């Protein structure tokens, strides 16, 4: 698999805040890449530089091995986090407007089919619900038959049902071998959709790999979490303090539980589970994704 897009040492500063601080990675063709991070981590700044919307202070973006040029915009589809749609026109008219802007657009029928727009096609843009709106914006993004699709937090603010519906649409587009870059702060979303994920925090890329490899390299066995109630003196092998919690990764659960009982820590609120991306994130950044 060759890399479709590659970024090298991107830096973007706003005032004296370094929003993106030297991020480099590449995305192979045909995969779904998830960029995860808490609010303000630099996800949107990174994705917008890659879309060609924001100019980086320094660093390079390569598409098919070449620096991005003015033809780049014809080959990518973009869904921003917040976009107002032209008012007083219908979904179909909006799709027709964007169709006219690209050289080889998809047909309206194709977009209706892929994005399930049949029931809202003649509705005024202003009268769409959150989920309908995101489907419509996804429709706009795939009009140019993009080789690369950028989705910036496409399911933020949607109810669980609408989010699941949206994942299905992404699945269809992925099946067409479109490369996708997705930012999200939902771990379940990343686990369902992404082949690879990059975790960023404070403008830096912390880890990058497939979800299963990331989990297996950071967690060995079960994860025990228990509130430490201020007892920061507790020392456990493979244990660490994370916020109000003591977290212990253990292969020998029996031994760990005995140690915990001996420590006379109040075990109210104790949980034992197989670690997921949420736990990995907590471990890497020390903060919860949604805080």
């Amino acid at each position, binding site marked *: 698999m060759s890399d479709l897009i590659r970024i090298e040492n991107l830096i973007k500063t706003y005032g004296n805040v370094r929003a993106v601080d030297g991020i480099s990675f590449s995305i192979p063709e045909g995969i779904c890449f998830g960029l995860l991070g808490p609010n303000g981590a630099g996800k949107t700044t990174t994705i917008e530089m890659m*879309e*060609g*919307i924001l100019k980086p202070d320094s660093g390079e973006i390569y598409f098919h091995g070449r620096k991005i040029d*003015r033809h780049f*915009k*014809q080959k990518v589809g*973009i869904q*921003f986090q*917040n*976009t*107002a*749609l*032209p*008012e*007083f*026109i219908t979904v179909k*008219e*909006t799709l*027709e*407007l*964007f*169709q*006219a*802007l*690209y*050289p080889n657009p998809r047909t309206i029928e194709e977009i209706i089919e892929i994005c399930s727009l049949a029931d809202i096609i003649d509705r005024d843009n202003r009268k769409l619900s959150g989920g309908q709106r995101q489907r419509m914006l996804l429709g*706009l993004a795939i009009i140019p038959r993009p080789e690369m699709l950028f989705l910036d937090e496409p399911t933020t603010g949607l109810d669980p049902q609408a989010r699941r519906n949206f994942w299905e649409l992404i699945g269809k587009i992925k099946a067409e071998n479109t490369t996708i870059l997705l930012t999200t702060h939902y771990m379940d979303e990343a686990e369902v959709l992404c082949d690879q994920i990059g975790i960023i925090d404070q403008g830096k890329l912390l880890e990058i790999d497939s979800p299963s490899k990331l989990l297996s390299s950071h967690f060995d066995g079960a994860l025990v979490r228990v509130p430490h109630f201020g007892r920061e003196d507790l020392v456990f092998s493979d244990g660490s303090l994370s916020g109000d919690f003591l977290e212990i990764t253990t292969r020998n659960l029996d031994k760990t539980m005995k140690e915990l009982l001996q420590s006379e820590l109040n075990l109210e609120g104790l949980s034992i589970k197989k670690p997921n991306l949420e736990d990995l994130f907590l471990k890497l950044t020390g903060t919860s994704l949604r805080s």
Partner: protein
Amino acid sequence: MNKFTALVRARTMEFLRDRGTFFWNLLFPVILVIGFSFAFGSGGDSLFKIGVSGLKDDSRGTFLELSSIEVIAYDSKSADVIEKLRRHQLDMYIDFDSMTYYLNDESSSSEILRIITGAELSGFTENEISGEPIRYIDWAVPGIIGMNMLFSCLFGVGFVIVRYRKNGVLKRMKATPVSPLLFITAQMSSRFVIVLITSVAVFTGTNLFLHFIVNGSYLLLLLITALAILCMISFGLIFAARLKSEELTSGLMNLLTFPMIIFSGVFFSLEGAPVFMQKASKVMPLTHFIEAARAVMIDGAGLIQIMPNILVLSGMTVGFLIIASMLFRWD
């Protein structure tokens, strides 16, 4: 459908379907024109107005003492005085030096004055000139339509693009292969057609029952209207180029349109105003539109006479466009 047509179509549909804005653009000038024609309609004083020059103590004319006759003295005969008679601002003009008097054969007041003065002015030469009366509304209609054009151009392009920038429509456009130039040209074109059609419709509609005086060419009127609209849209683009706040844009636009309306001579003539004010009014596109439109309508001016206004409007348009394109940012 190509990119340009699609963008023009979308913007025009947006305008036409926004019923409130659409009817306001059409109704506001109609209400003003009709309101003014009633408020300052014909009637007024019943005095006869006689302009005189060369009047001496021994001159004949006991009728000049009548209380129903207002006498306005001039130094000598001039084209200006004759023009006033033509426009029914005077009912008669007597030049005692050359023993000549002038009447307007389309004025009933002139007709009555001929009978009243006939006996005393025997031996004088009579001259007749013709001309319809100029009502206030004939004079004011270019200003009212021009003012509406100014609002529609500034808010319809300038303000709307600032709103697009704020709510992310511009950012969405930036992500497509559309160039800023194409996008802006499409916005301008849509608004140009809308304002031109609205202005022509308002003029034609109110003309049906107010019968404005148009001594010059309608085609020439259309030309300066089109040019003025382009100029005002370009002016609006300067605001649209970079501003991000709708409130600031709206405030700035009101700050600038208010003096323009006062000092461009929309409602009253600037002839008696201080010289600096008259000069200042020349930097405003609206002034040049109103001057040229009045000249064509009332004085029957041709292309040559209004060429200075045409050149200024064209020059301003080019200047505004250059400034706007240098300042423009998608975000």
